[in-house]
């Protein structure tokens, strides 16, 4: 079996989930299978320096595009799939992957399963486990080959970082492909951390949808102040405009690893867990006992968060006043 593992990187850095795709491919296969890493981006160095755990690397340098559009990435991947004729293509669940996986599935007609956490060989098929309903249910699926899987970041351990042997590198210049694209990159915004950088915060109090409304965020902010913590929000809270984007934790926000992460009214969708599950101490409060946040929490409570915050703030203040 031949497996193409898609990898990504930009601004001189390889996305860590790229190494997870290599590991997932190794785990899905059997001895003698071939794992081909695919990379497309402006600079190839991060891929060449790190993806040596794959048997080969097919890399396309995307000329001047500092961030390659999914349209161009998908086109280059299609060319690679046509040439390599793999049995399985692994695409990371990322902003890029969301456009790339379905594009390939629509053009090849191959089956696609998204949000995959586990991959097992089952004769000439695969059995995979994927997350649905915001991680509240797991779906075991049977997948005929060839197939495409969109794999959750964090589901597999990273493959070892080592450099690619020059004899195993196949490099092409994709400047023309990027220039032909209908999706033209006109700007990249990198967030300014002048006010706050959650990735370096040691303590974070994060509010989720359960906080209810904008005014209630002040209640959580009060507790954050007492704890010396930064206030943060999950995607629905930031989307509602209750907190600025730089304070968003999760897939499309910041990936954080504080010493203390207190989650108030956060359900813990897979996209949120991706951004905080490696925190040292996770305390979660949510009235839904089946909320997936409890799967990563060290301490969980199902009481009303407002009653708790009021009571806890009082206790902490009294303690610090002594």
């Amino acid at each position: 079996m031949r497996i193409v593992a898609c990898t990504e990187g930009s601004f001189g850095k390889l996305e860590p989930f790229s190494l997870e795709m290599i590991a997932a491919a190794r785990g899905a296969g059997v001895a003698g299978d071939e794992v081909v890493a695919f990379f497309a981006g402006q600079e190839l160095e991060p891929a060449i320096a790190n993806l040596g755990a794959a048997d080969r690397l097919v890399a396309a340098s995307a000329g001047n595009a500092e961030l390659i559009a999914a349209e161009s990435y998908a086109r280059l991947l299609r060319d690679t799939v046509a040439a390599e004729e793999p049995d399985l293509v692994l695409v990371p669940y990322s902003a890029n992957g969301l456009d790339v996986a379905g594009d390939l599935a629509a053009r090849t007609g191959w089956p696609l399963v998204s949000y995959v956490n586990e991959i097992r060989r089952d004769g000439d098929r695969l059995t995979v486990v994927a997350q649905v309903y915001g991680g509240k249910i797991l779906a075991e699926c049977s997948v005929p080959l060839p197939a495409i899987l969109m794999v959750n970041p964090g589901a597999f351990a990273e493959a070892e970082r080592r450099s690619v042997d020059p004899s195993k590198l196949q490099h092409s210049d994709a400047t023309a492909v990027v220039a032909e694209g209908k999706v033209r990159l006109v700007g990249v915004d990198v967030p300014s951390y002048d006010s706050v950088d959650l990735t370096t915060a040691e303590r974070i109090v994060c509010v989720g949808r359960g906080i209810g409304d904008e005014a209630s965020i002040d209640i959580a902010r009060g507790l954050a102040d007492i704890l010396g913590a930064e206030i943060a929000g999950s995607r629905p809270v930031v989307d509602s405009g209750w907190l600025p984007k730089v304070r968003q934790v999760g897939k499309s926000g910041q990936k954080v690893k504080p010493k203390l992460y207190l989650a108030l009214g956060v359900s813990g969708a897979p996209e949120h867990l991706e951004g905080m599950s490696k925190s040292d101490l996770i305390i979660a409060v949510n009235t839904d006992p089946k909320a997936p946040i409890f799967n990563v929490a060290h301490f969980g409570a199902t009481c009303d968060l407002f009653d708790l915050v009021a009571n806890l703030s009082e206790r902490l203040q009294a303690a610090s006043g002594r």
Partner: protein
Amino acid sequence: MKILVVLRMIPDSAGELELTSDGRGIDREWLDFQLNDFDDHALEEAILLKEAVGATVVAVAIGEGSNRVLQMAVARGADEAVALEAEGDGIIESRAIASSIVALARSKAADLVLCGVQSTEDLFGQLVPYAGTLLGWPHVSGSSRLGIEGSALRVTQERGGGIAATYEIALPAVIGVQTASKAPRYVSGSKLREASKTAIGKAPSEPAGFERSAEIVALRLPGQRGTGENLGDNPENVAERLASILAAKGFAGV
């Protein structure tokens, strides 16, 4: 400009989800169905574009409660409402409905198809790349801002880590909205009552057109992976325990 916006009705994931006796589906009997959150943002973005540059907005809904949500869409500013027939009453697979959306985009002569970037049921792939590819139109998933510059569409896409890329795309195109440029608006009861008189069109479902697909063998509830301690549901007890845990770990009294 004509905008087709797709509204999918999905089970409320915040509620209790129970499996059917064969273990292959979720019990839909007592479920609450609601508009997919990302689709709600797609609808808002469609209305914002209409207000900014002028457009006709066709809202297409699929799933339980479609008529109700279509009336809401009209009350918010959609010009036309179409209920798309669903195959069976199970999961709304984006892979399966893509061909129906493509047929509607063509028959309505849409320049822009907007839908939510994902739904909680799009296990077998997302609607945006399927519809975009089948139409032969460019597609971008995960937008947080849309605008028209001259004759081109400007899309800001969330790339993770807070990085946002802005693209310019000639129409027609398919865009998967993650967040509307402004939070979805509320509508008054009087507007809703007014909209309830709107005629709702019907569209048949088209065959999916894919020969081979993955299939669900079994659904299951995730086991409790964490070894976390449950502090219970009494706020006073929880606060007392947390205060001592935080103090013990050096987080209190700082």
